[in-house]
């Protein structure tokens, strides 16, 4: 679909001023039905299946049902994302299941120092060296 919301699991992110899916969707598709207090995807045919809403949902209420105009029914791909890795469960139409786990990040969330320990460029604004160069290049900057 595109993403769809399992009604029983969605609580409308009631403790927050906006839902997580609404915050994250890069195409501004997820909205909250305020009367029902449930989120929904307002234009499923503009959904990229990027899974940003699926990954961020605090109650795991969002899943993806493959685009029905070219995918047979019955398969699911569901992630469980933590701060340093992601686990995937891939269920085939024939019910076979494969699981994968991949690292996603080697540093704690929120810890990034922009310069990352590289020393700053010493030149002025007209000098071609960028912020952390040449240190972050590991070699001299190419000049003609």
């Amino acid at each position: 679909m595109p993403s769809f919301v399992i009604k029983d699991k969605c609580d409308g992110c009631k403790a927050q001023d906006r839902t997580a899916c609404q915050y994250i969707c890069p195409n501004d598709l997820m909205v909250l039905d305020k009367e029902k207090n449930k989120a929904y995807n307002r234009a499923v045919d503009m959904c990229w299946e990027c899974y940003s809403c699926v990954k961020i949902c605090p109650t795991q209420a969002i899943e993806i049902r493959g685009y029905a105009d070219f995918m047979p029914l019955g398969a699911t791909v569901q992630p469980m994302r933590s701060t340093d890795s992601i686990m995937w469960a891939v269920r085939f139409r024939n019910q076979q299941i494969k699981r994968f786990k991949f690292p996603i990040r080697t540093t704690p969330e929120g810890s990034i120092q922009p310069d990352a320990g590289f020393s700053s460029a010493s030149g002025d604004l007209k000098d071609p060296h960028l912020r952390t160069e040449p240190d972050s290049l590991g070699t001299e900057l190419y000049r003609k």
Partner: protein
Amino acid sequence: MNPGQFETIIIETDLLILGGGMAACGAAFEAAHWAKQHNLKVTVVDKAAMERSGAVAMGLSAINLYLGLKNGKNTIEDYVKYVKNDLMGITRGDLVANIARHVDSSVHLFEKWGLPIWKDEEGNYVNEGRWQIMIHGESYKNIVSEAAKNALKELGDNGKYYERIFITEPIMDGDRCVGAAGFSVRENKFYIFKAKAVLDVMGGAVHIFRPRSVGEGLGRSWYPPFNSGASAYFTLKAGAEMTCQEVRFVPVRFKDSYGPVGAWFLLFKAKATNAKGEDYMVTRAAELEKWAPYGTAKPTPANLRNYLMMQEVEEGNGPIYMRTDEAIKEVVANIPDEKQAKRKLKELESEAWEDFLDMTISQALNWAAHNIMPEETPSEIAACEPYFISSHSGASGAWISGPEDLAKGDKFWGYANMSTVKGLFAAGDASGASSHKFSSGSFTEGRIAAKSALAFCVDFPDPVSFDETKIEVLKNRILQPLLTFETHKEFANDVDVNPNFIKPKMFMFRLQKIMDEYAGGASVGFKTSKALLEKGLEFLQYMKEDSEKLAASDLNELMRCWENVHRMWQAESHIRTILFREETRWPGYYFRTDYPEMKDEWECFANCKWNPETGEWEMKRREIEEF
């Protein structure tokens, strides 16, 4: 909703960065450092939320541009040669070299920030191909955006980030760009950003051509559907010269879900064949000689690989398969020890699935839905619909100044990455003729452009001014679709079917139909001609008139209205430039049936410009400098 109910908010800054993708993040990271030294303000405005904004929103499984200069692996000259050949000679060597000489620095930063990059036993990056390295990139964008936001924080009150604001119009003071106008997609607020320099990094353009899938799968474009031509519209409306607007990109990908093929071709060394198992790159090799010297050089340009495949399809030799099964069998067969072979098979399986799960999850779902095991079953590949993206193997974008020390002749005019409009800079998919920058190069080009734009701010320190009466005019024009809907909505029983207006979705479908059928889309085998293009232009003029009657029932639809106006401008510049270039140079992107051959006289850039004063389009050739 009525424009009168919208509060107008005016924000003043020094450098205004428009966008939230890789180039915008690079720009914010770089700008923070230099702005701090010069006490300048930096403001970033994004239509989405930065941690999942832009084309890297879903993640990536590889970084496609890393030279490894510190290990002496490649040279800048090697890279420029490679890019130029892939684009059939039409490339700005100065721009490509400028990105290439800095890009390793960005990749080293990504790694320190926390991006897991694959390493071999000696601790070196694992190459997918000569220029590509493998990553565990699910959180690539999250990591890079965190660095960008933390960099802005270094500026304190001088660093600002606004999310969910859709930018749609440049603000001009004579021949200088001094800001941008847009609106919040969440609340009734109209925004004016005034700036000494503006950096356009709003991505490429998707959904100009009719996609292969038009049901739910409409959104499963290869490049994201939310990249809707805002960059090209912005520079065009400011009166900037554009380049390579004819050089669309048609990627060949796994069929329907558009999963990446790079790892299969480069890492796993898989072959693509027709249904009979014939490798068309071998059986049709003679065709490549027609496109010499580019066709006969290695690697074969992307568009020519497409072209040979398209010829197979046209002759009825499909389906076309990526022989994933054969590739995996071959790797495993070379391992004599049975236990080791089994372990390798498991490893390859995991790598193959991660390739999709990192960046095109839908393709993994597609494999699972069709019970495809790559080690057992080959998978179909196909040419997608055309896209506008200069960061990959397309080249459309603004014509920008090169850097002073690398640009020759008329390719340098004061500030690297400045367009032909004073104070307006471009990078990433917004700048043209500098293909193959990909994620790392776009981030890097954002850095280059931001530093250069700050130099401009220092050289022109006076506060900018513009005719304040323009604000109301702009506001009314930008919010007009809301008023149009409000005025006429009660007339008919259906909110979408009303003779007084057109809704953005049908407007988009109309554009896609014109482009597909007249400008060489997928359904006509990417073929077009003068007669077809002129007909397409005629229909685009009706669309331009009807764009005044676009209607929006809410803020989301208002954004869709403007996205589609942006697409329409990208489309017009595309048709006009294909028409201007009377030859066929990228036969696997589009084919001019009336000029079926490549010609020496067209070994040049084809540029265009919309003149804001006269409303006329001007076309011109620009020379290619040897790098």
